[in-house]
């Protein structure tokens, strides 16, 4: 009994959903005539959704009429193209949930070739709002990546500049602490910057060519370096705090930091300088 009730509930909800979708879609109809009032058959009618670029085409019948059904509501550009007539374009027609009528009167003249005449494949000529949204998201994330990358340069340079006060015989505890704090801020900002590039949507079928290839390759140097540098730094800091001379693997902290900073700078230059 429970199963039957669940099935009925599901069927009703699917039916309601279908009805809702049908109601949301509109219909566009119209009739094409020439200046004498005679109907014009075999005219290509193209309706382009101005908001998302989606296009639909239809051809007028023997009565000069055409019809688009199930059109998502929105503003449409309607274009009529027939041999022996000037191309007619209606800049904007609003399609709602009801039937819209757009008639056209064609003037005799030289016909204009249409996109369909040029032989582009639907893949090339059909727009996709989803693909555009994906590109938009990718660009937003990469823009943030760029801005954060620029901002990260400031604590990075400051950390390098204050390295003198954190190492050697003249180093002080406060100098080391300041260097460590700035290094931590740099690493944190760096990882945030990197995450915007790593998690930006990938566009399938796009090879990596040009300076961006160098930019990405350098990330394999400054990425691990930016993780390793704070680890080595904390080891060195602990040794210094114990009054020991920095030794072992921790002594590589300065060199790793230098290489990391150099690779980071080169990665920025690779997208700035054209080569």
């Amino acid at each position, binding site marked *: 009994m429970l199963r039957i009730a669940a099935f009925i509930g599901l069927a009703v909800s699917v039916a309601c959903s279908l009805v809702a979708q049908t109601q949301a879609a509109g219909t566009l109809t119209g009739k094409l005539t020439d200046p004498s009032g005679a109907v014009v058959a075999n005219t290509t009618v193209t309706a382009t959704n*101005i908001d*998302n*670029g989606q296009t639909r085409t239809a051809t007028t019948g023997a009565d000069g009429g055409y019809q688009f059904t199930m059109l998502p509501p929105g503003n449409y550009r309607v274009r009529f193209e027939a041999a022996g007539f000037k*191309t007619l374009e209606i800049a904007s027609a609003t399609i709602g949930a009801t039937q819209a009528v757009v008639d056209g009167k064609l003037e005799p*003249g*030289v*016909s*204009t*070739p*249409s*996109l369909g*005449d*040029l*032989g*582009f494949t639907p893949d*090339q*000529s*059909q*727009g*996709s*709002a989803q*693909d*555009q949204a*994906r*590109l*938009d998201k*990718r*660009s937003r994330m*990469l*823009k943030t990546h*760029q*801005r954060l990358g*620029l901002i990260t340069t400031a604590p990075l340079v400051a950390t390098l500049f204050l390295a003198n006060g954190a190492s050697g015989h003249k180093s002080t505890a406060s100098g080391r602490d300041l260097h460590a704090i700035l290094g931590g801020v740099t690493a944190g900002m760096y990882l945030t910057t990197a995450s915007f590039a790593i998690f930006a949507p990938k*566009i399938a079928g*796009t*090879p*990596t*060519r*040009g*300076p*961006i290839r160098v*930019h990405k390759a350098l990330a394999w140097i400054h990425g691990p370096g930016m993780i390793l540098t704070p680890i080595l730094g904390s080891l060195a800091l602990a040794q210094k705090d114990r009054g020991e001379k920095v030794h072992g693997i921790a002594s590589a902290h300065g060199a790793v930091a230098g290489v990391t900073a150099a690779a980071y700078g080169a990665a920025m230059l690779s*997208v*700035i*300088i*054209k080569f």
Partner: protein
Amino acid sequence: MNRKILWVFLALASLAGADGQWVLASSTLVYHVSHPLHQSEGVSHAAKGKGVCQGGQCNFLIAVPVKSFESGDTNRDLHMVQVTHGAQFPMVSVRVSLPEAALTSASIHCDVEIQFGGQTAKYKNVAFQAVTKGTETRITGSIPATLSDFKIEPPSLLSIPVKNDMPVRVDMTWRPM
């Protein structure tokens, strides 16, 4: 009488010959954008075009996929496709209407209508140079397009936007169909 019929026939034949169709045999389209840090150009050879001439008037349509432009950096190209809404409106189409007689002159001035990024812009009296060799006619020129003509937000590098001007150099070879 026979001679008159022959003359009428020849006149009709020449009129029929004047009408015709053209097809784009090859093309190079180059857009140029200028940034304070460097200049960039995107090149496409993927345009297709067709022209129809009737009664002394010609209409041409040239179309090219937005993503066919290559600047040598795929990241920049993807960014250009994004800012120009190239995934949503994947084609740039150019419509030109001109008298057929203009096709035989070395300098062509015509109005150009461009649909790009869901917007339409019209450029008045754009100058092109034409050179005819054999049956082919090579047309070169530059269209003074700007980003704002198509409501395109200027792409930026390191938060610095490119300039508004985006001239498009055109080099097309047409042949009769």
